[in-house]
């Protein structure tokens, strides 16, 4: 008996009990659709997150205090460190350094106020973090030298205080009670990043050091943002920074009291998290596929019992064990294959719908269904059909012809 004949015969036999076959297929459809939808949504989320990390800037390095756990009293990062790293002779792969102080403050205008993060930055920040203003100007050297009371508003803050995002230059807001003149509004970055960069205000670093964010020493800063010359030398730049800081902090070999973090590190971390999430979701979905498989087994067992006489007759006419085995395995595989195909289509539809719902709610998840997902789902569902069909088929094949023929 060739495969095509078995396939047609299986179809005929399954169509003789359409409701039962349909319900069994439904079990597989739901399982496969769930797996496909979950994996593609998980992948979509991963793409969104890695995309927003890439938006931070591909040649950016974060440097902050504290490193190896063996260091009990890590030295703070200082402005001196920043200057050393900015030195093109010591760190030729570095193109710009932006020291940052981070704090919180109450920003108010008229009767409105909002609690938001206050960031002390230098003019280099604009280039390093790619934060242009939509109106006014960025903080410049003059503001720095004069410790000027000027502020840049993020769009969310502007919206909260003024109800608009334009025409704000020259207004005065209060940060922790002190008046600051608005010199510009930052361009909107969108809420996709994990920290909302639209909900913050920026002041000159010197102003922050003196009046808003006090640290133990005026030299101390919270974070260094370093820009490498280009994306290819990020690793070199990171190594140069590490060398400079080791020398300046005179740490022991192998125990750093600082951490450098590149965008690649962020990407790797995020990918690890999201892929764990995807596997987790897919795993849960796979359970429903398993349940569908048990449904196949159940229905095939019923079918074997019902057709005991038919099996006996086929054996009397000369069917070998393998012939009966193939017949029933084909039936269960056809069930799961049909279920798999419909399930892939349904899963694709579900993930598309979820994607458009997410898009309507400003959370861009673009579900992606790869060929590998489809292949995997098809293979997996057929394997489920074969696996759960094996026991019933084997039971059919092992029937004694005499007893099977006598069965009522």
């Amino acid at each position, binding site marked *: 008996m060739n495969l095509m004949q078995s396939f047609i015969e299986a179809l005929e036999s399954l169509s*003789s009990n359409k409701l039962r076959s349909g319900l069994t297929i439904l079990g597989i459809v739901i399982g496969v659709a769930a797996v496909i939808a979950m994996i593609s949504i998980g992948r979509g989320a991963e793409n969104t997150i890695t995309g927003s990390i890439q938006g931070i800037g591909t040649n950016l390095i974060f440097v902050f205090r504290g490193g190896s756990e063996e260091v009990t009293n890590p030295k703070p990062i200082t402005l001196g460190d920043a200057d050393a790293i900015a030195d093109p002779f010591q760190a030729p792969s570095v193109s710009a350094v932006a020291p940052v102080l981070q704090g919180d403050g109450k920003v108010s205008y008229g009767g409105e106020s909002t609690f938001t993060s206050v960031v002390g930055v230098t003019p280099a920040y604009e280039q390093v973090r790619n934060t242009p203003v939509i109106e006014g100007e960025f903080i410049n050297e003059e503001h720095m030298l004069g410790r000027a009371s000027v502020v840049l508003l993020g769009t969310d803050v502007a919206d909260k205080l003024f109800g608009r995002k334009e025409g704000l230059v020259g207004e005065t807001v209060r940060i922790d009670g002190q008046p600051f003149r608005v010199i510009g509004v930052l361009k909107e970055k969108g809420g996709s990043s994990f920290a909302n960069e639209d909900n913050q205000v920026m002041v000159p670093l010197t102003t922050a050091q003196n009046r808003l964010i006090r640290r133990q020493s005026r030299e101390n800063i919270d974070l260094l943002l370093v820009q490498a010359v280009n994306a290819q030398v990020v690793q070199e730049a990171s190594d140069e920074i590490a060398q400079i800081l080791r020398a300046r902090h005179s740490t022991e070999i192998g125990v750093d009291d600082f951490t450098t973090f590149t965008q690649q590190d962020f990407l790797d971390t995020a990918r690890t998290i999201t892929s764990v999430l995807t596997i987790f979701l897919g795993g849960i979905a796979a359970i429903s596929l398993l349940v569908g498989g048990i449904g196949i087994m159940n229905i095939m067992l019923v079918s074997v019992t019902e057709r005991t*006489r038919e099996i006996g*007759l086929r054996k009397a*006419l*000369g069917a*070998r*064990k393998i012939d009966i085995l193939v017949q029933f395995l084909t039936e269960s595989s056809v069930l799961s294959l049909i279920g798999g195909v419909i399930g892939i289509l349904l899963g694709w539809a579900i993930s598309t719908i979820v994607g458009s719902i997410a898009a309507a709610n400003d959370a861009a998840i673009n579900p992606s269904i790869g060929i590998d997902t489809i292949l995997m789902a098809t293979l997996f569902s057929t394997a489920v059909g074969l696996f759960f069909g094996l026991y019933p088929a084997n039971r059919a094949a092992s029937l004694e012809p*005499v007893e099977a*023929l006598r069965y009522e």
Partner: protein
Amino acid sequence: MSDWVITAENLTKVYKMGEVEVHALRGLSLEIERGEVVSIMGPSGSGKSTLMNIIGCLDRPTSGAYILDGEAVSNLNDDQLASIRNRKVGFVFQSFNLLSRATAVYNVELPMRYAGVTRGRKERAREALEKVGLGDRLTHRPNELSGGQQQRVAIARALVNEPAILLADEPTGNLDTKSGEEIMHLLLNLNKERGTTLIIVTHDQDVAAQTGRSIRIRDGVVEAHR
């Protein structure tokens, strides 16, 4: 010297029903000549069905030798038995045993499929159906056929692989008198035309009377020949 199609010597068959051993056959010996028409009779519990199962290679004897058409069958495995059944035995059952969702042609094709025949199956099936007088019922399903017609399909199916013996188990048992007579007539004619050995297991004296030889079984041995 006679041409034996069946030689059975000292056949025994013991079933274990839990603790109890049931001796269905107790050293039965039997010979059937090629082309013969034989009926096997006996009361229920006589071992008649067991003998039929062994003759039809559906079952193996516990001991004893059985040679069917020159092949020793006693020690073959399941798949080898299936192959012997496929090539050498044509079954006709009391309850027809057709596949209900398949057409007459498909039913008749079935033994050829298991024989590995790939070409000309439909033609051979059609010829076989024409031979039993169902040339105009090729694509009918069993539920569209009368009992007599269904039994004709079963006979066509039994003959299509040109077996050495035709083994009929109460072939007229489920039919009215007229259809029963027709079926008997058909079977006897086929035997005359083709020389196929015909073995009929029956309760019916009238059926047995039409066969050349009648073997009576009782308590697992041959009681009498006629």
